[in-house]
């Protein structure tokens, strides 16, 4: 990735730094040197004179003129900073300060489940537009699913995604390779070659691997590479023709149902296959949507089966009633479908107790011309990259369902860990790659899909008033998104 020409040395002053991976939630200064986190010092300590001996007076000299960005550190502070940061800093000539007072300083968020549609469906989304939507939404890393046209099932396709992503210079994009060739569920795709080219996981997302023996082999084979196998759990014979959750609401609306049993039985089968595959096999369940699947996960964990799971904001916040109350709005049509209130509560409880590890958006953009049709003719999917953080802040953190630390863990460190992302992604430890987002937790905004960076406008949260907005986003120490200056700088 070419990221030169932009100064990558920063002093982020006085924000509330939340890094659950290091048990940190306090006001602190963060120094970024050469694109990595060089030091973090609590504000009191930094002002008093940190471990390296920075004197409060010298640093406060810069405070008044600090502004929000773009100011050179005064030379008066050079000696002290150099001491505070150790040998990492050769020269501080390029160090810029950014006043983070009133902002949250978070590790760049990680969305481990997005659909970027390129190659093949560029009218829905491209890697560039998706990567920009991600960064504007606080995600410095995303993992994109391979259900493109053609599918990402070989090294060349994986390299293509990485090259496009590098050129976009927005969020990092980590490709997920297909489990089977062409996602046809018949033969294993060349996993080794894809991992070598940069794939971080494999998945046939959109479909489960129906052939149990084949999935077992995929779990076993991937052991060699230490990557997770991500399953979209469903039973296609039960869900065929279905467009919403099966139950009284679907009966009332006259819509064909997708029973919860299909997901639950598939999660159960997959957990058993992970156990068969043996220690080290890593199964990850995408977009868990049912209370039954939560119970199976609990059982699997109690047996020591290595399985992780994610949940989407829409499954945490909406139910099947949205289909009725919206007047059959296809923006409520998603796979797996919005379920019942009992399911929603079970998912929320599982997320809170850590049984579900991650929040992922399952960002699934479609053209409005495709979505703006009769319910059963519309494609499945909801966009989420630009609404996830606001929804989590407004509907989970503000009402006290999750602490900021819990939320950041589930949106950053946990998915980074599941995917085994390099460079300390999802954390702010010293030496970690400086993927950092600064969030104004009080900023109020309204979901207006027309203003999205994504090409997809398909969201059932249209018109929602949300709190919490990304103001700055750094990738590898480079300030790429600055809302105070109109958005993207790259």
């Amino acid at each position, binding site marked *: 990735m070419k990221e030169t020409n932009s100064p990558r040395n920063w002093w982020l002053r006085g924000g509330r730094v939340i890094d659950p991976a290091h048990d940190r939630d306090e006001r602190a200064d963060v120094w970024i040197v050469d694109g990595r986190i060089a030091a973090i010092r609590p504000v009191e300590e930094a002002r008093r004179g940190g471990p390296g001996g920075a004197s409060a007076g010298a640093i406060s000299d810069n405070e008044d003129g600090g502004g929000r960005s773009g100011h050179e550190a005064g030379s008066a502070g050079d000696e002290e900073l150099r001491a505070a940061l150790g040998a990492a800093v050769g020269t501080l000539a390029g160090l810029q300060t950014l006043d983070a007072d009133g902002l949250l300083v978070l590790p760049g968020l990680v969305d481990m489940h997005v659909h970027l549609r390129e190659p093949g469906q560029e009218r829905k989304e491209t890697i560039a537009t998706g990567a920009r939507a991600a960064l504007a939404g606080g995600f410095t890393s995303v993992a994109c699913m391979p259900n493109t046209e053609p599918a990402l099932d070989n090294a060349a396709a994986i390299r293509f995604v990485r090259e496009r992503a590098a050129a976009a210079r927005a969020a990092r994009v980590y490709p997920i390779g297909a489990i089977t060739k062409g996602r046809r569920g018949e033969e294993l795709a060349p996993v080794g070659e894809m991992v070598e080219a940069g794939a971080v996981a494999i998945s046939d997302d959109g479909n489960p691997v129906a052939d149990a023996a084949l999935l077992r082999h995929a779990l076993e084979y991937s052991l060699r590479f230490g990557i997770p196998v991500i399953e979209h759990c469903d039973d296609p014979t039960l869900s065929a023709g279905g467009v919403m959750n099966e*139950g*009284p*609401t679907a*009966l*009332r*609306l*006259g*819509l*064909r149902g997708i029973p919860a049993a299909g997901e639950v039985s598939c999660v159960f089968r997959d957990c058993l296959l992970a156990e068969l595959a043996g220690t080290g096999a890593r199964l990850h369940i995408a977009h868990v949507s049912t209370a039954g699947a939560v119970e199976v996960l609990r059982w699997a964990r109690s047996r020591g089966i290595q399985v992780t799971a994610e949940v989407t904001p829409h499954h945490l916040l909406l139910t099947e*009633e949205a289909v*009725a109350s919206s*007047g*059959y*709005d*296809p923006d409520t049509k998603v796979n797996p479908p919005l379920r019942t209130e009992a399911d929603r509560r079970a998912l929320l409880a599982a997320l809170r107790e850590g049984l579900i590890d991650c929040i992922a958006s399952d960002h699934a953009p479609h053209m409005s*011309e495709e979505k*703006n*049709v*009769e*319910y*059963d*003719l519309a494609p499945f999917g909801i966009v989420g990259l630009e609404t996830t953080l606001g929804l989590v802040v407004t509907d989970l953190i503000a009402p006290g369902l999750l602490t900021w630390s819990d939320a950041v863990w589930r949106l950053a460190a946990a998915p980074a860990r599941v995917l085994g992302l390099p460079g300390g992604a999802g954390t702010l430890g010293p030496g970690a790659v400086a993927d950092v987002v600064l969030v104004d937790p009080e900023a109020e905004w309204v979901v207006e899909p027309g203003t999205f960076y994504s090409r997809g406008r398909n969201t059932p949260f249209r018109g929602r008033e949300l709190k919490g907005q990304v103001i700055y986003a750094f990738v590898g120490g480079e300030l790429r998104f600055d809302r105070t200056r109109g958005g993207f700088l790259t």
Partner: protein
Amino acid sequence: MPFQRKDLLGLEDLTRSEIEEILDTARPMLEVFSRPVKKYPTLRGRIMVNLFYEPSTRTRTSFELAAKALSADVVNIAVSTSSVTKGESLADTAHTLEALGADWIVLRHSSSGAPAWLARRVRAGVINAGDGSHEHPTQGLLDLFTLRQRKGRIEGLRVGIVGDVLHSRVARSDIWGLTKLGAQVVLIGPPTLVPPGIERILDKNPVHAAEPPITVAYDLKEVLPVLDAVVVLRLQLERQKRGLFPSVEEYSRLYRLDSERLREWGAKPDLVVMHPGPANLGLEISEELANSDRSAIREQVRNGVAVRMAVLYLLAGGTVTG
């Protein structure tokens, strides 16, 4: 209270008094329609478009006659499924019709919810003429009207609905209409077509009745003696291919109605038999029963025009006395 709606999307949305207002309005309409000169100037200069995405001669003709009896201009558009796949969208078509001056779009569509979806996107009134497996409100209304005509009341009646309840829009409209007006509904058929839990569709929209407003029975013979009326649904033969019942023969053995069976199984002598049509004669109902005195099928067809006149009249802003 004047009827104040832009659209008629389903009986689930209507209050009991709105339903009764339509039924009361339909009575004088039936008289108008029974005169030698079947014209009333109420809707002169207004345009009603029949936009049918599924073939249906009966419903389309009934709406057309109703509109014409009220002097409205009628345009019929039959959209073949092929032009849908060509990318001609429903919204686009509806906007075109609106631009051409349509006051009402009468929509028949295979997708459940298409009328509700469209109603939010056009200024014209949308009348649901049957959407997927969801509702067929004017059929429900004409069933209520016919039943009231025959029995003098709806309240307290026990009405069986026999057949493919799962996929039937007629069944849903009947369920809403009958329960809102105080009848008890018994859903009868094999469990694959009368799915467990269907009585819970009322959960979100409870009706206030002493008895459970909906019960389910799998055995027609057992429940037949308590029924005051029965609505026989048309069996879609393609359901068999999906494994929902083993054969037409077996379905017929378990659920067909004929006069002999009604006698043997102890049906009430004044049991009213209805069918939304078109019937598979000999399959779900015998031709002989369909043509018997018990059958209200012919009245249903005639009442259909009156009910649709009433709907158009009320949507146009008329009141019973006005």
